[in-house]
């Protein structure tokens, strides 16, 4: 089974993606992650203003049978969370790279993006899992 990836962004081994957007970084979970989770029923996201270190748990994604921690791929301050996911959590399943985005971060250190995997490396990484 192959999952889609987007070339324009970077990936963490915990299956979050990080997309630079001006001075901010948009964060969500990958197609692989949404498939593993199954039907998403609730996404627990932080409020703007909260700060997290790279790798720190910033929220959770709940599906019918599982809860997955969300780890922030870069350190920074939450600037916006995707309120649309409150009423439509299933967007994470249907459009994980687009409308299913979760938070926007003002990164403390944009160089941290270089530490993440590019699309091909992430693709390779997921193919080796299981």
């Amino acid at each position, binding site marked *: 089974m192959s999952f889609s990836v987007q070339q324009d962004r970077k990936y963490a081994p915990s299956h979050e993606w990080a997309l630079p957007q001006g001075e901010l970084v948009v964060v969500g979970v990958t197609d692989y992650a949404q498939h593993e989770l*199954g039907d998403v029923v*609730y996404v*627990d996201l932080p409020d703007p203003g909260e700060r997290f270190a790279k790798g720190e748990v910033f929220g*959770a994604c709940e599906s*019918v*049978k599982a*809860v997955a921690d969300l780890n922030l791929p870069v350190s920074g301050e939450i600037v916006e969370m995707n309120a649309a996911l*409150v009423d439509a959590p299933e967007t994470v399943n249907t459009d994980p790279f687009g409308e299913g985005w979760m938070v926007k971060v003002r990164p403390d250190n944009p160089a941290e993006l270089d530490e993440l995997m590019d699309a091909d490396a992430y693709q390779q990484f997921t193919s080796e899992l299981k």
Partner: protein
Amino acid sequence: MTDEMGRTRLYDEHLALGGRMVPFAGWALPVQYEATGALREHRAVREAAGLFDIDHMGQLIVSGPDAGAFLNAVLTVDVRAVPRGKAQYALLPYDDGGLVDDVMLYRLPEAWWIIVNAANRAKDLRWLIAHAGAFRVTIEDLSERTYMLALQGPRAQPILQTLTAFNLDRLPYHAVARTEVAGVPMLVAATGYTGEYGYELYFSAEEAVPVWRALLEAGRPAGLLPCGLAARDSLRFEAGLPLYGHELGPDIDPFAAGLGAFVRFDHRNFVGHDALLKIMLEGPARKLVGFEMTEPAVPRAGYPVLIDGQPAGTVTSGMKAPTLDRFLGMAFVPAQQAVPGAEIEIVVREKAKKAVIVKRPFYTPAYRRAPERVILPQPARMSDLRATAVR
């Protein structure tokens, strides 16, 4: 999947249908199917029909001249009140009033069938044998030879009807009959675990694949979907049906679980009789309640319940209920605090989230709804027709 997991005869069918296999009570079963997922499967059962492989469950057969008397000595119901060809939900208690299992009993002409939870099959069999004493009974485990499927939903009847000459209008809720379906001899029970009308089907294990395929084929035009364990759990949860290991267990009595209606004392001394009588008279120490989150969060089994900031119990089952689209759960709380409207908190990943106690069941099962008033059109009278013609 490891080799330790038992495989039902439909294992390859499930894989071919995109089933995601998980271990359950020692068996590899589909939690959901790739193309559909748990939510769509749940909805299919509420709106059309679903087909479940539940072969992991056990079928124990009790027969012999003393079968009725024996069952009355170990179950909480009076089996003499169960008519032939009917099903009865019953509890199998320990001496102290806790539960060995919850079971479905079918009274057939030649024997009693006891349908037991997969995880409890060996335990239940040992328990029954240990209590057979001087009763002239034969207790057999037919589980290996018998395949079990569930066909559930508002369209279950028309779908099944296409495969049998038996008039299913003559099989009301909780009736059981032997007939032939898809050319296979079958025990058909109008029972289920979803809150919808439907059937549980029992037949020779050899026929598992052809029967499964025949049902899927027959039901396809009506929207029948194969359904996995996730949908099975969310359906029974909404309908307020207990699951052993969650709402029921060795340290949970029927009164705590709200199942007092299934405990009869009148006529004979069954295992646990005195302990249960005492609990009934004094009231159980804790009670099972339903609750709804007032702050969004998914309450899951095992999460602590707080009342006035103090630990008061544990969630037994909880989820975002698919049909109701609400965050709901069940938990045991101290009996005096089991009041609808009472505010409680559920600890979700170390944060206390607010909830309120609500009545159960969350979803009224189809067979508990008041029949719709049907207002039959009055036959037209000639005077009416003439009157309208003038206009």
